[in-house]
């Protein structure tokens, strides 16, 4: 057996489990909200073109409208000003092999349950490494907060002073960049904390990750079904010319043996 035929067989038997880390694209799923004078992230919308009717007798299909950053989505380096000059920084330019890789999951769910503004710090990362070994170069790092269990207004958790949701500190991102990660992913609407604009630099995950040519994933779910290490993440965005990101289906392969 080759590695690939062995993998296919193990997926078929369930020895390798495929975990879907994706939310359903749904008109009611929250998107990031900016001050109203700015252009806004388009909500997911689906208009029926035909449904086996006078508009098309034998077929049903829809036109979609959405933003590159609607729903569970991928952030390419060119999404942020710091990454504008990164070579191959748009989704269509990223090499396909860069879209599949090992994944480390840092469990912050207890902290996020206690504090909406929970911050992932270098100390948390070092504690995790003490238990599971150093984060390998080229790994995806996902911050598990169980935030995806929230729905409705509790998801963005907006207050008069902005959103309140967990995220990394600038130093945590710097440490991850020292480890030469592939990208960083979260269960919240962005890779940064709800109050991430008040860090220096503002939105450190976006600013530092994309400046270093790394990727982002957000609005993930089912992170509680992943082991801390050992799973493989498959996260290919749509091939959009010059795209700064893309909704996508994120899958994880988990060895059950």
């Amino acid at each position: 057996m080759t590695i690939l035929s062995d993998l296919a067989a193990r997926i078929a038997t369930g020895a390798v489990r495929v975990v879907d880390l994706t939310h359903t694209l749904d008109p009611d799923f929250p998107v990031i909200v900016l001050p109203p004078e700015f252009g806004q992230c388009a909500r997911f919308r689906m208009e029926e073109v035909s449904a086996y009717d006078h508009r098309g007798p034998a077929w049903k299909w829809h036109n979609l409208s959405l933003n590159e950053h609607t729903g569970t989505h991928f952030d390419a380096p060119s999404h942020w000003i710091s990454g504008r000059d990164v070579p191959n920084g748009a989704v269509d330019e990223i090499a396909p092999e860069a879209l599949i890789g090992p994944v480390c999951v840092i469990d912050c769910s207890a902290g996020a349950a206690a504090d909406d503004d929970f911050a992932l710090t270098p100390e948390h990362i070092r504690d995790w490494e003490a238990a599971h070994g150093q984060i390998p170069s080229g790994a995806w790092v996902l911050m598990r907060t169980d935030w995806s269990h929230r729905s409705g207004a509790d998801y963005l958790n907006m207050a008069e002073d902005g959103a309140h949701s967990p995220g990394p500190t600038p130093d945590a991102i710097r440490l991850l960049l020292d480890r030469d990660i592939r990208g960083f992913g979260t269960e919240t609407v962005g890779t940064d904390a709800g109050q991430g604009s008040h860090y220096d630099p503002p939105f450190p995950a976006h600013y530092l990750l994309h400046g270093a040519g790394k990727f982002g994933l957000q609005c993930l779910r089912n992170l509680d079904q992943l082991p801390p290490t050992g799973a493989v993440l498959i996260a290919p965005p749509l091939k959009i010319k010059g795209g700064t990101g893309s909704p996508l289906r994120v899958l994880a392969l988990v060895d059950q043996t």
Partner: protein
Amino acid sequence: MTEPLSPPKKKDPQRRSPVATLPPRTRSRAGLGLAVAAAENAFRLQTCADCGAVQYPPRDACCRCLSTDLPWRETDRTGTVIAETRIHASPDPYFRARLPWRAGSVRLAAGPTAICHLHGDVGRGDAVRLRLMLDKAGRGVMVALPQTPTPAMEDDPMMRELTAHPRHRRVLVTDARAPEAPALVQALLDAGAAHVWVGEAEAWRRWPGRAGFEGRENVTLVPLDVTDSDSLATLAGEIGGKTDILVNTARHVRPGGVMAADTVQARDAMEVNALGLMRLGQAFGPGMAGRTADGVNRAACFATVLSAHALSPDPGYGAFAASQAAARSVAQTLRAEFARGGLRMTCIYTGPTEDDWHDGLPPPKVAPKALARGIVKGLIDGLEEVFVGDVAQDLAERWRRDPGILERELGDMP
């Protein structure tokens, strides 16, 4: 004395809902002028430019001097009933279902004698106040009303036919976040609405005004987003068959011209203001237009708030004005489509409103309460074109006189 309307009983589910019929629709081109005046509560009659005669009914030439120069002029609204009759038999299906019907001849202070529909509280010899009103077919008819208001006069069966009074009706207000929504809901309840549903888009975005609608008697927040066909289909599936009045308050306003503005915001404006109205018409129009004879709380009116700049743009709000012109055009098509079922399409035009998006503009601006009052008054009066506030009224007047000059005047504004 008018017998006050009682709240309607629940429908007998085994009986067929009454089929809507319309009064006679055919009019000459001149006759349609009455509808134009009635739509906005004007009392304009043909007045001969050559000999000064006021004539009724409208004709193509002056009945006194045969001149064809017959401008429509606002005219004295008073008159005296000189004869009345109670019609007990009619071959017309619409009137057959509403017999007996009272009509009379009224001598207008302006000169002519007119056959009018008579309000129940007026009779032979009475001094009356005349109005041009839109009938169920959307045509202008002359109505004789008591000179001074009488108790419950709006409950008269004829008035109930000619207006969209909210009393005992169930109303859908489409956007709870609109600045005028709280005052509008209150004004509708004050006018006797049986229930008000208030649409809430994006419940996942917290907003402080929500508390004002929660837990109120006869008020329900419902999920509704005019940019999402599915949300409309779902809501129409629940309440489309009992929505008697719909007031669309969803508006997307952003300042900025066309050259320097961005198409993302323009697209949002089109999605909410023009296509949103279209989707509402598609989701709720058929159900409402099919229920226009359905008892005391029959469906009566589909209304939308528009900017008066739908008539002619304010270049400071270029994309918004474009969306308003598109929305007005959608409303006009809906009006033609609804008319076949006897449902009224009402446009409520406002000037700049007192809100975040008109912050930099000088007064006068329309306060949310004034807009709410204007909407409900339009329903009570049975209008199709309502201009709320001085700016909207002034714009409409200048637009009627000369749209080309108005365009240039607005273009010169700082």
